[in-house]
């Protein structure tokens, strides 16, 4: 187990380093060096930038100092908002985005698993076809299309929910639905297919031969095995939800990190783009790492390393 964690940790660090290096390389390779001659930058901003990026020093020194500042969670100043640093923007936006993301995951995982199990248990029945058609639709309709559709139907035509911002639970309903539908559909499909496979396994037949009641067979014997693959795709889903917050926060005018990110893209506020990218990546990679560890805990076979080492 320890060896497994160490290996994952190493891969995590290497991945992060590649991303940080990539952002640095891209930043200095932008034609006309945006950090030097950005139109409309004030003298104050220019000074901030020069001191943060050490623009007067050679590239390798810049690179090392950049890595050092990233390692201490200092992402530097913003170009467009002179009095604010990237850290300020992250500090304001992250809690909101995190709240949106967490609710989305909770909704997607719970509803996806339930839908998948029902479909698997009614295999080839009407419920199965219905659930899977909904799931394919959920995968096929892009979240920004769904979001606009929801606003039009449930906020404009039938004003049930408020169309924008993030100030009460009612405000959260539409963004969460728009963002959770895709991941829910993916989880439902995966749960269904692994559940169907698990249900044909000998140990399920054995459990039936013991005379166990069907619910016990499903929840004790099948579900845990069927959910292993769901755990493994959580990292990918998380990445999808995170990038999904960009468009959802834009459409619903939610003052989260994603909206700042989209604004910074449109304004070509490079330090914010770079800083946010690094922060997002670090967050995701750490989440992937946690998912791997969770998988190791769930599957007793992976613990074998530990037992052998003792």
């Amino acid at each position, binding site marked *: 187990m320890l060896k497994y964690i160490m290996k994952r940790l190493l891969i995590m660090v290497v991945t992060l380093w590649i991303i940080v290096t990539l952002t640095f390389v891209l930043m200095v390779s932008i034609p006309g060096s945006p950090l030097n001659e950005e139109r409309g930058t004030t003298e104050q901003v220019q000074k901030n930038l020069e001191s943060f990026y050490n623009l007067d020093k050679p590239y390798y020194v810049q690179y090392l100092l950049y890595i050092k500042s990233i390692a201490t969670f200092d992402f530097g100043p913003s170009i467009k908002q002179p009095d604010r640093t990237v850290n300020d923007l992250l500090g304001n936006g992250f809690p909101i985005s995190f709240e949106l993301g967490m609710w989305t995951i909770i909704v997607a995982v719970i509803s996806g698993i339930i839908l998948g199990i029902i479909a698997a248990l009614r295999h080839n029945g009407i419920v199965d076809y219905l659930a899977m058609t909904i799931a394919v639709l959920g995968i096929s309709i892009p979240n920004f*299309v769904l979001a606009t559709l929801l606003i039009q139907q449930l906020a404009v035509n039938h004003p049930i929910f408020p169309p924008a911002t993030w100030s009460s639970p009612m405000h959260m309903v539409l963004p969460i639905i728009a963002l959770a539908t895709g991941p829910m559909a993916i989880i439902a499909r995966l749960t269904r297919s692994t559940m169907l496979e698990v249900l044909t396994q000998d140990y399920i037949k054995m459990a039936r031969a013991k005379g166990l009641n069907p619910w016990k067979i499903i929840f004790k014997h099948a579900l845990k095995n069927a959910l292993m693959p769901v755990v493994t795709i959580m990292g990918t889903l998380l990445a999808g939800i995170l990038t999904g917050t960009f468009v959802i926060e834009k459409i619903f005018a939610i003052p989260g990190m994603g909206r700042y990110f989209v604004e910074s893209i449109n304004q070509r506020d490079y330090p914010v783009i770079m800083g946010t990218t690094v922060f997002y990546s670090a967050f995701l990679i750490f989440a992937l790492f946690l998912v791997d560890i969770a998988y190791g805990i769930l599957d007793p076979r992976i613990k074998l390393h530990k037992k052998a080492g003792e």
Partner: protein
Amino acid sequence: MKLANETNNNHSPGPVRDEWFQWKEKDLHKAESVSRPSLSYWQDAWKRLLKNKLAMMGLVFLVLLTFMAIFGPYMSKYDVGKIDLPNQYQPPSADHWFGTDSHGRDVFVRTWYGARISLFVGLMAALIDCVIGIVYGGISGFKGGRTDNVMMRIIEVLYGIPYLLVVILLLVVMGPSLTTIIVALTVTGWVGMARIVRGQVLQIKNYEFVLASRSFGTKSWRIIRKNLIPNTMGPIIVQLTLTVPSAIFAEAFLSFLGLGIQSPFASWGSMANDSLGAILSGNWWTLFFPAFFISFTMFAFNVLGDGLQDALDPKLRK
């Protein structure tokens, strides 16, 4: 100790006749002949796909869409980027079949231009992914040992990089264009394909017929070409049909963020982005057509991919 067998027989009509007690002509060949016609793998898969109504619906839709993407723009007298402000927000009519947008541009023409972009991006990204993935995964799986180990570590690291972020970063730096989008999408997109190909190769490498040709000293490349590629086609095709919609989604997503296709050219994503305000004012058609076609195209590719997966899965053959 003998039971009356003549009366007690429910398998044949009529009594058992005495003259039937003759030795039968020996005909062992008959016993060995297979009574059902055997279908080849591809014939069987095609037959199964034809039976899948949803997948066939997807296929038909995609064929029609391709046709319209090629010929659709010529069916209207309007130009894709022609701005005609006095005619903005015209509802669908005999003149403008899908209406006009905020700049008075014809939505019908723009929709088929968007189809061109989406299909082109989707197919190109899938094709490039496929080539890189097959070469990389094939080498990794076939060489095995240390080479495989190093190549898989590289993949593991790449897999951890959040790909849309990298794509956004690349687009920001390189500036939005069709080429940039495709390059950006394929930089990390091939990893999934490489993993699948490697898995398949590892599995098939140890099959007896491959071991046999190796023991005859057949060259590696020949084994890859003659044995491995035909046998890995199934999963590759499935992965391919599922890569296309994700590339189409990525393009639309980026265009929606303003990082993709720029005016005056049209893409479904940028059309949706342009008409965000229109939903509040009731000009539904500006959003409806791009939204409908992007959703339905992805739906078609997804159901086709699912259908292919079922049809090509050897485990499901009976």
